């Protein structure tokens, strides 16, 4: 198609990069994330410090927790736009139940899990049994959840997290390893187990890849998808708790941005919208890319408008390298 002698090296190079990205999205995402960080440090040497790296590590962990459920839902062929809303509401529940006392952690935890599971269940039923497009219905449900949070808190959430819970998230071991990593020691193996070792995980891949074949194999497709939404809801709720542990106080819609952030992190990690393809390792690397990208735009101290345009263009560039749909002629 591109016969011009000038364009050919460029398209060739781009094809190579794109092929490289698609052969191993995780590796590519790690390279991309480190590249973005290297560029940031090159431009702003102050961005290279133990403190800064520790913070980036923490943000990456938080986003990768939030994206864990999203990964499962996307592998099952759905999409979960309630991640941000559930995180925000869980954060508000946590502060208003704990009110600065650690003893009430278990109550807060139980309520948040119930909330996450309930929202996930509604998502699952509406997308599978009713057959609504996942994007629109999860968005509508997320809106209702957000509106409800305004109603209950009257616009100003109260309380704050207990001090011990807060330091279990933000304390830095040896001065730089955030305590949040200890949660990762539990959550990461759990997610890896669910996706790659459990019966549910294997069924989820088949459901996403070919629902019809899965049904003929005797898998209850709707049930598997609904469970994936419920896991996503619970993981989002827990991430919301950890997030507010980091920031201490809550406000309405504080984590709404995580809906898109998690979606892009998952896609950059090589999970496809079509379902049936994807890894959690890729999602963790994708989370790092998103955190590094945001960090770069903040560190470069650009004006708001230049920042937004750059973010949009970089996102397009990343998407071009990854998640292209197949052409009609193939």
């Amino acid at each position, binding site marked *: 198609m591109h016969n011009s002698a000038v364009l050919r090296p460029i398209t060739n190079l781009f094809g190579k990069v794109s092929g490289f990205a698609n052969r191993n999205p995780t590796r590519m995402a790690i390279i991309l994330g480190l590249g973005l960080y290297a560029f940031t440090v090159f431009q702003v040497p102050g961005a290279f410090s133990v403190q800064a790296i520790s913070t980036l590590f923490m943000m990456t962990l938080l986003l990768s927790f939030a994206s864990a459920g999203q990964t499962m839902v996307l592998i099952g062929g759905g999409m979960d736009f309630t991640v941000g809303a559930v995180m925000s509401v869980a954060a508000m529940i946590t502060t208003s139940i704990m009110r600065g006392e650690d003893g009430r952690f278990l109550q807060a935890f139980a309520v948040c899990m119930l909330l996450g599971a309930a929202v996930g269940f509604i998502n699952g039923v509406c997308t599978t049994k009713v057959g609504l497009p996942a994007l629109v219905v999860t968005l509508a449900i997320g809106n*209702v959840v957000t509106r409800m949070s305004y*109603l209950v808190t*009257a616009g100003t959430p109260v309380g704050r997290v207990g001090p011990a819970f807060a330091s279990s998230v933000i304390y830095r071991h040896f001065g730089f390893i955030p305590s949040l990593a200890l949660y990762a020691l539990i959550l990461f193996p759990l997610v890896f187990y669910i996706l790659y070792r459990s019966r549910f995980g294997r069924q989820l891949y088949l459901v996403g890849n070919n629902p019809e074949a899965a049904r003929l194999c005797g898998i209850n497709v709707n049930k598997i998808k609904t469970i994936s939404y419920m896991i996503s809801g619970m993981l989002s709720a827990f991430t919301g708790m950890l997030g507010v542990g980091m920031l201490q106080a809550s406000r309405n819609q504080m984590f709404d941005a995580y809906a898109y952030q998690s979606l*892009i992190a998952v*896609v950059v990690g090589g999970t496809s919208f079509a379902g049936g393809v994807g890894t959690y390792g890729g999602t963790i690397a994708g989370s790092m890319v998103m955190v590094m990208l945001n960090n770069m735009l903040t560190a470069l101290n650009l004006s708001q408008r230049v920042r937004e345009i750059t973010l949009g*263009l970089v996102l397009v560039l990343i*998407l071009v390298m990854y998640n292209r749909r197949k052409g009609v002629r193939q």
Partner: protein
Amino acid sequence: MAQVRESFSRFRRTPAFTGFVLFTFALTLNVILQGPANFFSPNSLGILFSSNMPFLIIVIAQGVLLMSGTMDISIGIQLALVNVVTIMTVQEWGLSFVMGSLFGVAAAIVASVVLWVLISVIRLPDLLAGFAMTYVIRGVNVFIMNIPQGTVARPFWQAYSSLLLGFIPASIIALAVVLAIWAYLKRTPFGTHVYAVGANPQNAFAAGISPVKVQLQAFMIKGLFTGIAGICLTLMTASGNPLQAEDWGLRSLAAAIIGGFTFGGWGTIACAVFGAGFLVMIQNSVYFLFNWLANVIPGLMVTSFWHNFIADSIIFLGLLTTIITVRGQREALRINLEKKYMKRGESIA
């Protein structure tokens, strides 16, 4: 009588039927709560049309894209783009408002074509491409106009909110223009190709229709309609704001789905009109309902949080009802087609 029943059963099979039922429900609710005399007064009808025209038109624009099997969630911020381009070309270059609006429409078409390149040519996921474009357009908007400013000459915005012959809202002209353009397009090959491409691009391609070309046309028409909606918005607010209407992108999508569209190859412009009408009427009804409650129950304090919560919940319930009925419709349509074209024992899979 039999004829009436026949035409009703034909109407029941059209995609717009569910949207129509929901819209009628919301309209009745609104009329009852507001009081028929208040609702049907020329002034309140005028305000109803003029303040909701931009939204109605972008739902139609979104609908055109849904027919062709794609979507644009950056359509909301594109309205703001039309708004700032129109205001700033008038203010900085000293153009007349009409010339400024032409620039505004051109900006919307350019933005749409850029998105077409991303979605149809480069084949990015439409949701994420639209998300990325939202950032880019928002940045561009602030480049063009850094803070809300500007005015529209008085005769123009006055004309927009006036009543023709004392009872026809002038803003209806914009809707008439959009519907006339669509009525023409429906008769061109595009009118049928768009459904073929939306339902199944592979089959359309095999039948000799270029999906990429049809989607380009769809995006350009969407850009034109967005431009018209943006001019309505500019006339309505009579000022410029680079960061308005952003959440209309997702709202327009919800309205289109409520009206009876699905992702690709299904739905008509009537669906968009009914879907947008439903959303607007529900918003109004909830407002009047709480006013009425505050009168009936003394001392009842209702915050806007309640309005938003009830309105969004009803929108969610509306979504649930549509899809259930859309399924029934498709089934009815399929059975009908089988009766008409298939031999005994065959079926359309």
